[in-house]
């Protein structure tokens, strides 16, 4: 996982509640190998017409939002399918963090595993930020994981609530599988006891 400590970047407002992972990356692109990069698939059918022309009305096709590395979303962003390709597309496009009132649970977990920071803030705060970005989008937002603060373009600061476990993992770029393999003695102890009691699990 790529370590993340602090980032200041332009942000783009993504409109709409319940933006699902089918919209973040349509299913037809999920067969692609990751090495090629999933960035071109991000919001594909919202960004492009069927003939591949950019849709001028989509926010990421407009300046300066085209340079955005933070997306400001609405409630339940990333709902629907568990496809981690949605997170791959965001990361490969260059998105470092998301700010929204709520996220789909599976999407939220997938984001954390890839070092993409999903920042939950109150709905009214996020709505105000989206409005601000539409009128004055040229100033950056700072996300500081170490200080646990988010600083908006107008200078206001908000607490960044993220679980200490994931905060530490992301700041240190911890490999989660490696971390867990360190718990293998506890896992084996648990398993010996548990599977002997639940004999029927392995048939």
């Amino acid at each position, binding site marked *: 996982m790529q370590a993340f400590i602090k980032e200041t970047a332009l942000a783009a407002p993504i409109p709409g509640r319940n933006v*699902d992972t089918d919209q973040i990356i*349509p299913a037809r692109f999920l*067969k692609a190998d990751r090495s090629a990069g999933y960035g071109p698939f991000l919001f594909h059918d919202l960004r492009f017409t069927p003939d591949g022309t950019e849709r001028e009305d989509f926010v990421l096709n407009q300046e300066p939002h085209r340079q955005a590395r933070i997306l400001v979303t609405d409630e*339940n962003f990333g*709902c629907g399918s568990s496809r981690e390709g949605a997170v791959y597309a965001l990361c490969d496009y260059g998105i470092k963090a998301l700010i929204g009132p*709520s996220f789909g*649970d599976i999407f939220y977990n997938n984001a954390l595993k890839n070092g993409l920071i999903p920042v939950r803030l109150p709905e009214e705060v996020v709505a105000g930020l989206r409005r601000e970005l539409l009128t004055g989008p040229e100033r950056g937002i700072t996300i500081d994981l170490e200080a646990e603060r988010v600083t908006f373009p107008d200078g206001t600061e908000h607490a960044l609530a993220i*679980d200490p476990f994931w905060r530490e993992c992301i700041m240190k770029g911890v490999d*989660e599988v490696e971390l867990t393999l360190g718990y293998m003695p506890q896992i084996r102890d*648990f398993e010996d006891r548990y599977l002997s009691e639940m004999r029927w699990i392995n048939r």
Partner: protein
Amino acid sequence: MAREESARTGTARKAMFDKIWDRHVIVARDQGPSLIYIDRDIIHEGSFHAFADMKRRGLTVRKPRQMFGTPDHYVPTSGRSIGDAATPEIARMISQFDKNMQWGGIRNFGLRDPRQGIVHVVGPEQGITLPGLTIVCSDSHTSTHGALGAIAFGIGQSENAHVMATQTLWQARPRTMRITIDGTLAKGVHSKDVILAIIGKIGAGGAGGHAIEYAGQAIRAMSIEQRLTICNMSIEAAARCGMVAPDDTTFEYLHGRPFAPSEADWDDAVAYWRTLPSEADAVFDSEVELDGGAIEPMVTWGTSPQDTLPITGFVPDPAAQTDAAHREMVAAALRYMGLEPGTALADVPIDRVFIGSCTNSRLEDLRAAAAVLKGRKAVVPAMVVPGSTGVKLAAEAEGIDRIFRDAGFEWRESGCSMCAAMNGDFVKPQERCASTSNRNFVGRQGPGARTHLMSPAMAAAAAVTGRLTDVRRMMS
């Protein structure tokens, strides 16, 4: 006292979710995620990223006997050979899956295996899904398996690799929600109508961060297949998982299935399973109640499963919405769906019908649709895709396939098909599909596709009339 605190200190009687969760904790932390043991990982073709990760790390699958694989998302439904795949790219997905299963030493119910099917149909059907287990799959509809009293949830590929390598996951304990449906369902009302009514009430984000337990008289009266439909769509309300307490209906369903406990272990297993239901005074973080007797046949009109109304209703008017954001959502949905405000839902014409998906492709679903279709003809293109080869063979043994064929339906091989639109089965742009699947998202069934979700009986009625139709008018 808050439920989380009471569960931790043991001062309150536990909910089923808490009992199962606590049984699986290996490393507990005061805050944030705990390391929990995973009993089952069910794998499909989309898992190639996880296998690539495992190989890159030089790791092997730690507990292959607790893993099961079956191809479903990309499999052709026109035949049972890789050569039937719609494109070479899709064929590669299936052959790569077979290689990965072999590499991992994982049981693979492959394309020509009689046990093949949609992961969430095969799991219960084979007795892989059992009460009290933790079950994961890299598919959001893994919540389906909770119908048998398991904690079952969807994961991504990073977590999939983590389970393959360690048989564990770091997970934060969700909050709990009990949804109680009392009363008796009316004639023509199915479990799909119940779950659509629930989502319509609480919204697409209404259960975010929660594990749902479905309870009440209407749920108890349901068969396992009906409960599977309910739990399947928990994710459409943003729930982490959905569950129904195991009971005699559960035990009768499981007895004798291939991976269910052997006769030697059966009594011990059932004795344990009987300890799982929530205590009478269990504390839930949230409670929702619906009158099952008041639920009507439901259809969706928009681009989220929460956009749902009784078939007797009318397309909503954006201008009537008081919240500005909601007004724009409704307007955008109607633009995409090509619908006019105020139109009677029963007047909306359709272009095709799809009966299938992990929500509604089991034997009882096919029986319900066939009962409507018997002696009638579809007036639009229609296809039925059984949820597993086992379901297909059972339906054929009952003559259900003949009813569908006589009505003009295509009778296909099993797979996800037109629900996920990954295998070459898709709805054309601007085509309107009456579908028994679970998602009416923009582009879900194909770019520009317009999806109306409904029960199998309602989909069959739509096939016969060529429009959204109240199935109750077609019942004797």
